[in-house]
């Protein structure tokens, strides 16, 4: 390295070392933080005032409400009276009829959803598992290819020893989906024909998509 280059490098390191904290930048950051806080306070006040001034009007019922009522009525009538924990129309999802089914009754309800002549949810599009930290949830998105009606069915389960009866005997497509949920979230599906890990190696410790997951070997 030539003498000139060495001097240049030295000059560079010197200039970096000279001012570790830029006072001007600090002041700007502080001002920005204050402005943000002020804006947030103003918005909260405005929101509170608006809420006081006009109580929210009751919305007109969704056009999908009758569909939802029909599903709930059928489940109550044919599976069990207390099988439905909750039911609502999910507005964020194009008014998707959503039913929360009690875990104990899921096995008979899944049969009903597919084979009942009025429902005929013959196509299971998707199965997802969600870790809500307070509990686990398995969500089934299904559609009837004939009538194009669709529904989301949710089953809640405890976080420790999470277990939901397998839907594979009803819809064959649930097979790998449930294996994936077992692998990544640790929900067991009794009645599943082949419950093994599918994505992670067989000797993997833990279930990576759980919110409290800690890798066994942080280097991996």
């Amino acid at each position, binding site marked *: 390295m030539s003498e000139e280059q060495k001097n240049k490098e030295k000059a560079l390191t010197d200039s970096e070392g000279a001012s570790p904290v830029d006072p001007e930048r600090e002041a700007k950051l502080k001002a920005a933080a204050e402005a943000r806080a002020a804006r947030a306070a103003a918005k909260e006040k405005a929101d509170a005032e608006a809420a006081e001034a006009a109580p929210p009007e009751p919305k007109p019922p969704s056009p999908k409400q009758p569909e939802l009522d029909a599903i709930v009525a059928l489940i109550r009538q044919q599976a069990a009276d207390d099988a439905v924990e909750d039911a609502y129309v*999910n*507005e*964020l*999802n*194009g008014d*998707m009829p959503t039913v929360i089914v009690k875990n104990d009754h899921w096995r008979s309800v899944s049969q009903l959803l597919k084979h009942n002549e009025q429902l005929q949810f*013959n*196509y*299971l*599009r*998707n199965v*997802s*598992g*969600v*870790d809500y930290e307070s509990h686990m949830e398995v*969500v089934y*998105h299904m559609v009837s*290819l004939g009538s*194009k009606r669709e529904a*989301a069915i949710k089953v809640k389960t405890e976080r420790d020893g999470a277990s939901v009866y397998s839907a594979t005997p009803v*819809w*064959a*497509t649930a*097979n*790998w*989906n449930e294996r*994936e949920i077992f692998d*990544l979230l640790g929900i067991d599906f009794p009645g599943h024909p082949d419950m093994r*890990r*599918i*994505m*992670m*190696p067989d000797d993997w410790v833990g279930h*990576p*998509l759980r919110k409290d997951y800690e890798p066994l070997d942080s280097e991996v």
Partner: protein
Amino acid sequence: MIRTEELLLNVGPQHPSTHGVFRIVVKLDGEVITEATPVMGYLHRGTEKIAENLNFTQIIPYTDRMDYVSAMTNNYVLVHAVETMMGLEVPLRAEFLRLIVMELQRVASHLVWWGTYLLDIGAMSPFLYAFRDREIIIDLFNELCGARLTYNYMRVGGVKWDAPPGWMDKVRDFIPYMEKKLEEYDKLVSGNEIFLARIKGIGKYDAATAIDYGLSGANLRCTGVDWDLRKAEPYSLYSQFEFDVPLGQNGDCYDRYRIRLEEIRQSLRILKQAVPQFPEDGETMGKVPRVIRPPAGETYVRIESPRGEIGCHIVSKGKAEPYRLKFRRPSFVNLQILPKLLVGETMTNLITILGGVDIVVGEVDC
């Protein structure tokens, strides 16, 4: 008596006919498969876990890498899900650009399938033809967004780049070119007797089985089930355009082949209508908040990717990052029927059937 022993044979994960790093363990009795067990996860990158720590714009490039043969449709399913939750409106020009790139992508994706499928079966030159023609689409995308495969093109509320001057003319010129080439493909391959003997009546299943296994795309339509999400549950601007949904009858590899080739024609038909209607000017980004925070709740949206129904299930807690993001990957779901199809088939048919399902391993493993 000749004594035969059962042979355990490992196919993949580095076998070229498995289109990536897919592995299948087969039990053979002579040349007949008695059991097949797919082994997955060699390309599992934990996209869903990574996404929980990223905001929605940062997740878009990860969707490119799931189905890297059809990145545009993957982009769309994510941004469409967020737009559904937030009730955002997309400017017409942006929506047209999205539709045009998605249909071009469908053509490109089916070309890759066509070329590699015939390569699997033993025909070398169709692969070269398919990649020559796909290159034109890749060049168009390169000009549009600066990438050949992983585009990162769509954004919540619009698209990142407007079409450069003259780009739409190139798309217009591509349509008749591709139509002519398709005829050439048909002449070259579709009537070939050796080829027909290899794929007719192979990998058959009926409509009830296909529905039970949740198959989608050409794998479902080859049994005669009329279910294309562009028609059944129209999204984007598809309801404005005329196109047919090609259907099969026998549910075999040949029907799947015919459907995919016909889908290229139908995509060109959509493009033919869309290009003249493309708005002269306008915004390519809608009014979107600076930080994208979908309201607390959840949504599941699905669109028709070249491989079938790709879905995106977002659970949001009102933060900039998703609480849980799950992708329904058509390759993953379609592949489930494979062990059932393979029992009783010969080893050579394994390649024919696996190729006919049309998987992308990046999407199977996610």
